[in-house]
């Protein structure tokens, strides 16, 4: 017995411990992905520091498995997208590696869970836009190829997307032109400039086309709802926000509740508004606009102590960096303001738990 133990110890020593049960080699990678899903701190930087071979093995394992979690795959793709952005802006050669991993992960997510196709299309759209802004034409061409592949699987959504993008441009343009509107109100006076009217109408037209082509395009419903609200067509707006609330995308649901709540508040339906703001906060606790909206409503309705408590909790610096869906609402605005990194927040919101 003693001899057997001796031999076993020798073999163990010679194997460098390889015979012992070990952590799976991809455990670090997936731990990072899960951390990324719950908090916005630091994960993309740590991913950038991880050996590419370790990353490739982890991704190989996931894309080859039918048991992988589609939500984790999606989150990993967004994490690689952030790593890609950092690599591009710091002129690091790893940029193409990260975007390739992101594509592989999203392909796998769609295979496992077909409804992830909607997210994959959004990813391609955001990344193509960002690539062009960053003069990464090689990446843009690669992504254009992905778009062509997706065309076969969701032709209606791809066609609707081009109208949606036009709608975003008009909506952004109308917002920057409208002096009264840009002071946050629909208008300080009842009438709106003729110049304003045509831009809002143009935005509405594009979103309307998008919805006709794809009635499940909740983003188009959300944006058309806001435009209708600004055109003082409250009933249309409420119906469109209700539609957007049925989305699987937490970002769209949050914004629909926030905007729908503000519509109620404007109409003096304070109880209904409060319910919507609270629901927005519950559905996506990592925002800032919903607690602000709720706080000011509580303050207006003489519940100052509650207003203060909601606000103080929202502004606690321990929350870290927030990803507020409102800031991702208008992609052209983000580009105009030069906040290119912020374009990825549109994807980031969707993967946070």
């Amino acid at each position, binding site marked *: 017995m003693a001899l057997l133990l001796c031999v076993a110890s020798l073999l163990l020593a010679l194997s460098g411990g390889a015979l012992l049960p070990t952590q799976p080699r991809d455990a670090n990678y997936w731990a990072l992905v899960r951390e990324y899903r719950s908090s916005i701190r630091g994960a993309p930087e740590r991913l950038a520091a991880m050996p590419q071979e370790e990353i490739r093995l982890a991704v190989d394992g996931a894309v080859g498995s039918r048991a992988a979690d589609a939500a984790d795959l999606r989150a990993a793709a967004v994490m690689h997208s952030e790593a890609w952005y950092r690599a591009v802006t710091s002129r690091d050669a790893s940029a193409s590696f990260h975007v390739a991993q992101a594509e592989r992960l999203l392909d796998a997510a769609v295979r496992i869970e077909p409804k992830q196709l909607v997210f994959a299309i959004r990813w391609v759209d955001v990344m193509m836009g960002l690539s062009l802004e960053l003069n990464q034409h090689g990446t843009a061409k690669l992504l254009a190829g992905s778009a062509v592949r997706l065309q076969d699987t969701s032709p209606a959504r791809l066609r609707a997307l081009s109208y949606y993008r036009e709608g975003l441009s008009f909506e*952004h343009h109308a*917002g*920057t032109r409208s*002096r*009264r*509107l*840009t*002071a*946050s*109100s*629909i*208008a*300080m*006076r*009842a009438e709106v400039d003729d110049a304003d009217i045509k831009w809002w109408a143009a935005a509405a037209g594009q979103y309307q086309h998008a919805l006709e082509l794809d009635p499940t395009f909740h983003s188009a419903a959300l944006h058309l709802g*806001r435009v209708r*609200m*600004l055109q003082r067509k409250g009933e249309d707006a409420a119906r469109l926000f209700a539609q957007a609330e049925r989305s699987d995308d937490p970002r769209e649901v949050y914004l629909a509740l*926030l*905007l729908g709540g*503000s*519509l109620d*508040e*404007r109409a*003096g339906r304070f109880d209904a508004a409060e319910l919507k703001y609270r629901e927005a906060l519950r559905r996506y606790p990592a925002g*800032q*606009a919903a607690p*602000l*909206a709720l*706080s*000011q409503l509580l*303050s*207006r309705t003489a519940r*100052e102590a509650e*207003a*203060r408590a909601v*606000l*103080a909790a*929202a*502004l*606690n*610096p321990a929350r870290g*960096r*927030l990803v*507020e869906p*409102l*800031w991702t*609402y*208008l992609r052209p*605005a*983000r580009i*105009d*303001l*030069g*906040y290119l990194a912020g374009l990825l927040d549109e994807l980031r919101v969707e993967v946070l738990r």
Partner: protein
Amino acid sequence: MKGAALLLAAFVIAAQQQTFRSEADAVRVDALVTDGGRPIAGLTAADFVVTDNGLPQKIDAIAIEDVPLSMMLALDASDSMRGRPFEDLKEAASAAIALLLPVDRVAVLTFSEQLRWIAPWSGARDRAGAAVKTLRAGGGTSLADAAYAALTLRDEQPGRRSLALIFSDGTDTASWLPESIVAEKAGRFDGVVFAVVLGNEGNNSLMHRSGIQLLREEWSSLAGRQLLLELADTTGGEVYREATAARLKETFTRIVKEFRTRYLLTYTPSDKSAGWHGIEVKLKSGNGRIRARRGYSR
């Protein structure tokens, strides 16, 4: 005997209710009195005339230096402040904090797109100062949201006078709240708002606003005016425009020093109706310039 006890109890309860009502109803007005730009000292309640909705009021109390101060600093930490201007801002904030007395309290709020309450209310000036030193600039500007937060998160400790000092380099790009709502909040804030603006105020072109008007009535007084001007005007404060960040330290310290020369007048209004109450403060002598809040909302 039982009847007398009941009568006494009723009298005590009524007295307590009266006291409670008068504390809750009291209106405090911070008034700066100057002559040729220099604060006038040594005035008493008898020197002032205060009207509330046009009705003359009896001044219950007047105080000046001996009322502890609660100072909220709301600082713009957006992308446009990067570099030397941000270092100048931090220096200015530190200098303002250093002027506080041991009885005073301070809180610091920063805003880019995101608002952060980096130093909640405390008498620990070194903690607030340390928090300011670690600040970094980056991101958009949620000015209206920050102004709302500065007014809402006022110090709740009683018996203090509130100063909100809001600094921005101007253009709001990310707030959710409409300016009209924030301006309306100022009517319910019994402190004073001072604003310091760096450079020219932008055209306030916004990308992310809710696009709503939450108040049913038109807030026409805001048309063409800037939010900070409205807040300062409503509360009896001032807006300082500086061309360069190098002047911020001088401006911040001037604001704190000047605030201590203001008179705090307290009165119980004869008219307690709900709604807006316009306040006017004058000197009986007619000399001097007075800067005080325009009114309040009940």
